[in-house]
């Protein structure tokens, strides 16, 4: 797995490089936009971590040229700018993810893993949460390799929860996901599905928390 880091702050660049090398990635590091553009034109990477404020060539421009050449490598934009327009512009230009400095290293590493996985599977069909793995294409779930007996609706609920693992999912989002199986999915029905899911997952230590007035949250897997 080859990762290119384009970051002009030497301390941050060094930290990122070393952390990703520890994770067994092959990491190249550049501190200049123009240089990055050259290198990206010549080589292909599995992931580009791109700072926006770069000397030589602006990060936005590097990204624009990369996408114009048709390169599909996932790009994770790092920036000190958190204004909404910047974020939208970055995503419009073809960035796959966006992190605002300063960030938490574990979170960056998690997103790097997710981006690389998505890049490889072309959309990402497998969701993992600790020992729990959901194959979205095959529509089945396994817990520590053992298949889980889940109904289609329970799978639907689990998929939404796993996609937004560690974040709150409200009942409307769950109802939206389930729309199509039933004509109408009321909040009570959702409570039933979540209740059943819980019963099946809790023995394995995967817990779905109810957040008062907001919805549900799949608690972060301990190893994530």
């Amino acid at each position, binding site marked *: 797995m080859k990762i290119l880091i384009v970051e002009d*702050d*030497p*301390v*941050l*660049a*060094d*930290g*990122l490089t*070393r*952390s990703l090398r*520890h994770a067994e990635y092959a990491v190249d590091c550049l501190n200049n936009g123009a240089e990055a553009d050259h290198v990206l034109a010549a080589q292909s990477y599995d992931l580009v971590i791109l*700072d926006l*404020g770069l000397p030589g060539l602006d990060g936005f421009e590097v990204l624009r040229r990369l996408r114009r050449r048709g390169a599909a490598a996932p790009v994770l934009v*790092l920036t*000190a*700018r*958190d204004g*909404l327009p910047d974020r939208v512009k970055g995503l419009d230009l073809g960035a796959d993810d966006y992190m*605002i*400095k*300063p*960030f*938490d*290293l*574990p979170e960056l590493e998690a997103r790097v893993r997710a981006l690389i996985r998505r890049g490889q599977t072309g959309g990402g069909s497998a969701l993992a949460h600790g020992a729990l793995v959901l194959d979205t294409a095959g529509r089945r779930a396994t817990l520590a390799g053992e298949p889980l007996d889940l109904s289609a609706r329970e799978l639907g609920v689990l998929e939404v929860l796993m996609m937004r693992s*560690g*974040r*709150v999912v*409200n009942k409307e989002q769950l109802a939206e996901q389930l729309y199509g199986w039933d004509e109408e999915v009321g909040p009570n029905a959702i409570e039933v599905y979540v209740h059943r899911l819980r019963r099946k997952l809790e023995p394995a230590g995967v817990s779905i*928390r109810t*957040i*008062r*007035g*907001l*919805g549900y*949250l799949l*608690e*972060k897997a301990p190893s994530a």
Partner: protein
Amino acid sequence: MPESRPATPPRSQTTLRKQVLAWLCWPLLLLWSVSSVVDYDIANRFVNLAYDRALLESALDIGRQVKVLKERIYVDLPEVAVQMLQSRESGRLYYRVTGPQNDYITGEPDLPPPPDPFSERVNYYDDQYRGRPVRIVTLQLPLEPGKTERMVMVQVAENRSARNDFARQILLRMILPQALLIVVAGMMIWYAVGRGLAPLVTLRHEIENRSHRDLSALPEEQAPQEVRPLIHAMNALLERLSAALAAQQRFIADAAHQLRTPIAGLKTQTELALRQAPQGEAQTTLRQLQSGTERTTRLVNQLLSLARAEPLIGRVQASELIDLRQLAREATSDWVPRALERNVDLGFDADSHAAHVQGNSFLLREMLNNVLDNAVRYTQPGGQVTVRVAASGSGPTVSVEDNGPGIPDGERARVFERFYRVLGTGAEGCGLGLAIVSEIAQSHGAQVSLYPGIGGIGTVVKIVFPQLGGNFDGQASELASM
């Protein structure tokens, strides 16, 4: 938080109105007094002329009655004529007739003699008679026509009081209208100056009612020509002020941005070192370093928020219709993972009515983030934080209540100050959170209040927005116009 308005400055004793009035009234009064003196003199002269003529007529009447019979001179005054002389409307007449040898013939023997009896044929003079000022005419008449050797002198006197009264009346009728004119002129000046200064009063209200974040130009069109340069100068100052403020904000924002990258480096390196360092002293040091970095991060983010929330000068801030429930639900959801980490039960509660507010969703989100940050940070593990949104009552309201340690009475007002931290809370923080909250709330015309929770436990932060359609204190419309 109520905005502190400077106390009204002590009123200057010399108002413009008083000055104009003084400049008008003192010269007018001086002119008036001079004119009164002149008027009195003129009145006196003409009154004297008229009265003297009448007095002479009387003397001539008496003179015509001087007769000589057998060398004896006598005056043939019928009783009716004497009575007429003594009961005139303009006061009693006294007379005396003396012969060629200054011998008394008739009348009042004690009338004062003329100063120089033989100077003129007709002689007027003032004197005293019976203790009162009198005007006397002396008429010299020949006993026989054409013969000037033997002359009879007729003296007629009358009290001056009648003519004095008359002169005074004339004077009064002349100066009273003048005085009235001065009073009317004064009143008109008073009114006119007031009318003339009205644009300044309007200007004053305009400035007084402004919020400190409104640095837009003052209206110049309605002001009169004389006031325009002043407004113009003030507008130029406002413009420079906004430019300076904008530059300052840009500087803070830039500084915060610039700090983010090195902090990110520091954070990453600390995290890496923590993974590699063995348990013990080094770990402790690195943990301290990490917590310091966290606090620096928070401070930088909050400085940036504050720079954003402060007077929105020269920057385009979109204002839109926002459902407060939606916004608060999303913000609360974002904080759930952090709350779970700290074992704080974070929940949300909203009634079924939409709670619409007009404003900038980015800033409002920032505001809620800061309230939530405080609540989650200062509530003990096992505690509870609840965000509530209500549309009813005085306006759309969002409140965040916790059952944490609460804020002591005395400190409740101060927590909105920048960099103020409640002592003894232990948790890391830089004291900018509530300053940001208050700044953003104010820019949306919302009121922030802080009070203890039910039973005196914990803290409730309540933000009440103005009802839509009502008057927003000018600030939301200001947001909208940008």
